[in-house]
């Protein structure tokens, strides 16, 4: 009889056991979606490219090494060419591959499957744009085997030549999708760059084709003339004015400020104008100087010599002016810089590409008016008074076959201020001439970035033994 009393207790336990499976099936994330529309991916990817990449670490390194911008910190640091695997890790392992390329990859797949042609086109254009940034700093990089978790955890690195072929294919495919019947699911205000204007996206795709054709002028097995031809062919469908500029706008509100505004805040450690750049503008009496830079505490334009020791008060140097996003330490209430757009590609750049390509095809005389048109486009973009612009342009020496590339690239260097293209052009053409930074950590300006910590750790590949002294494939030097 006593044992009978145990039975209900045991029964209770067994009862509690039944339906356990269902009881435990509650592991569905209520906080975050597992799938989102292309529109919701596109917006943050555009901001990632602008804020984290072009206006982020890539932008900082480029402008330090090209001595447009200087960091008032003691050497050794990034400015004096001290750059480690860890320094570039966030760019490779977060901003570029997962945040940008992987999200674009998924967005493109989604758009292609649903025949959302505009999203497929925009995705491919941005993927080409970003992939080029990746290969330009690292050379051989994964692409054909990328984005295959869990099937392939060790994607091989494609040669840079193959990557450039992929880039052109992506742009061709983008143009193809733009020419298809537009989907009713169409980008609009989610596309910060063009607001869903597919005509402009098409021009941007062609402009980029030209940019990337011209990149290969010195590449082994490629000729400047052929690349110039291809570039000019693409440019015929490219940008037509500054209205076509590809840029990401910022509202300037808190948590919506322009990247270079954030980059130049006092907490960033003293980011000021570079001496070589300021001096070159001063020597040429360039009317763009006061628009690009703000005067120092003595009211003068003084750039910081790259690599020297930090000075206690960075206000002895000129700061970045508000047009490109600068925070003005001497005028802290002025937050105009916070609303500055971040330029991804400009009509100015396109005209310089056209000038250089025209020079290869048709000589200096043919290139000269385009070269001047390019300067004028940048002056117009900056709002330089037309008289000042004309005076400056008229003061430029005539292009000759001997000086054309140097003069074009030197002016392009100003027109592409803060653009990643300055570093690519410098490696490709050697212009402008840059002196080594003081206290240089290595005795050369790096020709590439080191591979990132995590790819070396998780995906060992033969290319990882290259040093920053080894040029990338298209460098040709």
């Amino acid at each position: 009889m006593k044992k009978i009393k145990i039975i209900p207790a045991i029964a209770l336990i067994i009862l509690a056991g039944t339906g356990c499976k269902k009881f435990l099936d509650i592991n569905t994330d209520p906080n975050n979606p597992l799938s989102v529309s292309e529109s919701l991916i596109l917006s943050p990817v555009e901001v990632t490219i602008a804020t984290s990449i072009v206006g982020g670490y890539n932008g900082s390194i480029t402008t330090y090494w090209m001595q447009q911008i200087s960091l008032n910190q003691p050497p050794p640091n990034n400015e004096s060419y001290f750059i480690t695997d860890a320094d570039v890790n966030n760019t490779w392992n977060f901003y570029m591959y997962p945040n940008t390329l992987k999200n674009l990859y998924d967005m493109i797949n989604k758009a292609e499957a649903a025949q959302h042609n505009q999203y497929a086109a925009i995705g491919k254009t941005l993927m080409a744009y970003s992939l080029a940034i990746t290969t330009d700093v690292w050379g051989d990089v994964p692409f054909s085997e990328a984005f295959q978790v869990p099937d392939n955890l060790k994607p091989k690195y494609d040669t840079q030549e193959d990557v450039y072929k992929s880039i052109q294919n992506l742009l061709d495919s983008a143009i193809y999708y733009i020419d298809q019947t537009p989907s009713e699911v169409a980008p609009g205000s989610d596309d910060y760059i063009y607001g869903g204007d597919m005509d402009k996206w098409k021009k941007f795709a062609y402009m980029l084709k030209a940019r990337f054709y011209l990149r290969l002028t010195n590449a082994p097995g490629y000729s400047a003339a052929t690349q110039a031809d291809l570039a000019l062919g693409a440019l015929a469908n490219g940008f037509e004015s500054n209205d076509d500029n590809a840029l990401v706008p910022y509202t300037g509100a808190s948590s919506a400020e322009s990247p270079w505004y954030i980059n130049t805040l006092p907490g960033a450690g003293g980011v000021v104008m570079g001496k070589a750049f300021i001096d070159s503008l001063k020597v040429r009496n360039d009317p763009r100087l006061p628009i690009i830079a703000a005067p120092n505490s003595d009211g003068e334009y003084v750039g910081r010599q790259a690599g020297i020791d930090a000075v206690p008060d960075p206000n002895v140097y000129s700061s970045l002016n508000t047009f490109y996003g600068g925070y003005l330490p001497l005028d802290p209430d002025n937050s105009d810089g916070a609303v500055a757009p971040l330029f991804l590609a400009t009509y100015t750049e396109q005209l310089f590409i056209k000038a250089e390509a025209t020079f290869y095809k048709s000589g200096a005389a043919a290139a000269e008016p385009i070269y001047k048109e390019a300067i004028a486009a940048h002056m117009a973009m900056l709002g330089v008074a037309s008289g000042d612009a004309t005076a400056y342009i008229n003061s430029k020496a005539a292009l000759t076959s001997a000086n054309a590339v140097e003069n074009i690239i030197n002016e392009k260097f100003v027109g592409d201020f803060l653009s990643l293209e300055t570093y690519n052009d410098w490696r490709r053409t050697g212009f402008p001439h840059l002196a080594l930074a003081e206290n240089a950590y290595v005795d050369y300006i790096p020709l590439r970035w080191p591979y990132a910590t995590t790819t070396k750790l998780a995906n060992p590949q033969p290319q990882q033994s290259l040093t920053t002294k080894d040029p990338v494939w298209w460098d040709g030097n």
Partner: protein
Amino acid sequence: MRKTIAGTLLALLLCISAALAQNDVLTGKITDDKNLPVPYATVTVKGTKTGVAANEQGGFSISAKSGDVLVISATGFSDKEVTIGSERTLSVILSVNAGNLNEVVVTALGIKREKRMLTYTTQEVKGSAVVDAKQDNIVNALSGKVAGVQITNSSGQPGSSSQIVIRGNSSLTGDNTALFVIDGIPIDNSEAGNPDGPLGAGGTSNRGIDIDPNIIESVTVLKGAAATALYGANASRGAIIITTKNGRGGISGKPTISVSSSYTIQTPLTPDLQHIWAQGSNGVYVDGNNGQFGSTSWGPKIDTLRVNGQPVPKHDPFKEYFRTGHTTDNNVSVSGFGDKSNYIVSYSFLRNDGIVPTTYYARNSFFAKYSINFSPKVSLTTQFNYVHSDNKRTLDGNSLEAPLWTVLSAPISWDPHPTTNPDGTQRVYRLARNNPYWLLDNTSLKDKVDRILPTINFSYKPLSWLTITERLGADMYYNSTNYHAAIGTIGSYPDGRVYGRAITYQQFNNDIIVDAQKTFGGDFFTELLVGNNILTNYNDNKLDQGVGLNVPDFYNISNASTVTSSYAYYKTRKVGFYAQANMEYKRMLTVGLTGRYDGSSVLSSDNQFYPYGSASVGFIFTEPLKMSNNSILNFGKIRAAYSAVGNDAVGPYSLTNPYYQATIGNVTFPFNGQNGYLLTTQYGYPLKNELVKEFEVGLELQFLHSRISFDGAYFNKKSIDLLTSGVPLDGATGFASASQNAGSMRNSGVEMTLTGVPVKSKNFNWTITVNFTKIKNEVLELAPGVPYLQFAGFVNPGIFAYANSPYGVIYGTHFKRDEAGQMLLDDDGYPQRDDNLGPIGNATPDWLAGLTNELSYKNFSFSFVLDMKQGGQIMNLDGHYLDFYGVSKITENRDGTRLFEGIIESTGKPNTTAVATDQPFYQNLWSNVDETSLQDASYLKLRQATLAYRFGDNILKDSFFKSIVLNVTATNFILYKNYFGADPEVSLNGSGNGQGFANFMTPTSKNILFGLKATF
């Protein structure tokens, strides 16, 4: 005495007879042979179910008639039987049994068992020792007292967290801290952490800080998996089993009122800084007091410095910033018991005004417990614990909003006051940093907790050998964290910021336990237990952040120009079925088996359920040898256990790859009117449980009639299939990392406790307890093809796990060395920074030891606890900054030289040239090599020294006091360190993984406390 003590206690709890009324009440007092009261002894009438517990002063009252035999037993004393005559008052003197042979300890699920018969390691700390430690955080109260346990206090901020790890780290990226259990109910001891992350804000409280030491009867530390297997997954890291006080003690029917109060003075510990050189560079003074800016103290000597002919006042920025802290701790409790019921009500109020101005930690705790026996078969205990705490901190860590940055690096020539310029902007000696006093006035981090812990324990004993227990408990709290930084704060949010985080946590635990105990034929005692556990956890997490404030000095979210909000809700469920069998033979041999079958909602659906268990044996070899009266060795026991415990140490929703609302650098979404999502960067593989396999052997010996006792254990624990997040992936795969079952770890080590009673006499007693722990920890493997992974810190320096190294590798930059470890110097004789980064140190200590001394002479008692940690390193990133700024002590000798031992790299010859250790040396080389900031974390601390005086009964007998005890206590005096910061016991990562990393941390303090305790 065939009946075990466990059985007796069980009978006590359940079966206080209603039939006692016919007996006369007998009162008595229990003392030891020095006439000191023996608290909380158990008094039973032999052969009946009648029993009571004595109070703290040894007093008891029990209904017994002439001729009855009373059995009096107390922890640490030999049992005594007294036959009642006609007397109605009784004095009982118990003799000390130093070996605690019959000690009863609380084991898993709150089951009380005789320590003698256990087959695994436990160690008990008395509630009084926890109280006497005088720590706001109960975790710290255990420091130095328990073998096999490593405790690390994180910071000197009021309400700061402390980490407790038992038998070494066993998880790579999951929780490594012990499970906390109060009266059989698991409770949360997590650390919410700052929304800004530990690196740039420091830690928060671990929720164990909510436990009021005043309500604790005892703490049992269950160390190995064999001891905890019954608890299931969460206890595979060891468990801290807390038993709260009940109302027993004193005189039946009369309440006992107890009041205690203490006041503490806290003096901050100080780091080593230079006090000679003024602000400036290259010996040239920069006048930060008068509008010049400069971050460094490489100026002239301040003693001879003249500005306009006047000397510059010298400051001690560190000492001037801190204040003397104060803590008041007050407790009042009322308890009582009758035949069928007992109760206790306790209220404590603790307030600590920290050594950092404006900071405090205040805790109100209310505890009530009521037990009643409805019938001899049915009993019920209900208890309720309510805690309210308020905590205000400043930020610690690598953040411009952490005041310590400009406290530690401030030049001695700088007067930090006034904090603002006439135009309202901050007045600082340098650019791009905040004035620390301005931060005190203009930033605020407040943490508030309301927590309730209700428990119901219902017990039904249908048969004398069968008990069914239903135990339902909850742990519910609301934790709000509010921060603001004013407009004008230098840093990422120059226009000010407010955030508010609200965490609502609810955990419900239910156990049904059926326990059968039977003695067969006098020699065999068998216990069989089966049970079911359901554990449900809800966590609701809301964060609202506003930036760009409009109205100055107004810190409401409505004042923000941009507001972002996030909300997350987490739900987990676990179901466990368990069984335990213990067989004891002649009180000399015990065999124990446990098994458990768990299901967890967080694992992949095809791997939700997993079985595990343990087998253990204990043998008292002195028993068959009849040595219990042997004058040399009177007790000896060997024990062995093997266990395999499954663990589901991963958060919910780890199996999928969701999209997260995007935050990109400074830009938060929605941005420009559009929302946006990016795919997670961590790939979620399907997950199964991890498994901890542990083998343990132990030896317990007692010599010289138990005057010396020894308890030692060797364990070897291997954790496999570790649930690991952040396994690095090449980002080109589309994900930066993965969460997966990957890697294994081994902890093997010894734990030893040696207790001796050198002096035992009428007036003078002396007890020494030494404990020693040495654990060898090794990460055996990580995910396939992954040689190391990072889990805390910056990349360099950072805290990593490396295969074939102990957990907690410190990674960073180091000097160039040859294969023999010789420094490779440049042609001038300077060390060179190696471009290759790598392991430079390790946070895991070599060994830990504690020494407790308790001396009593008449009414005086004196005790002290020493705590020693040997080995292990700390990355004190302060070194990197302070060496650069020229404020660290090492830079004082800046006009000197140093001969670096090593080889000139170009010639291969030993270096003979001393080099200048000047500003360029420290700025360009020394401060840029992480290795130079690596410090020895060893210490020897006086954890606590207490001198107490108990007023004698002759003084109190005519007063209404039952007892009065006065004490003076000193805590946290560092006796030895080899560390340039204030206290090597520090962690920027709070109680989380990533110990061994510090940066701009509030120092701890040495404390003097005055206390009074009285009962009425």
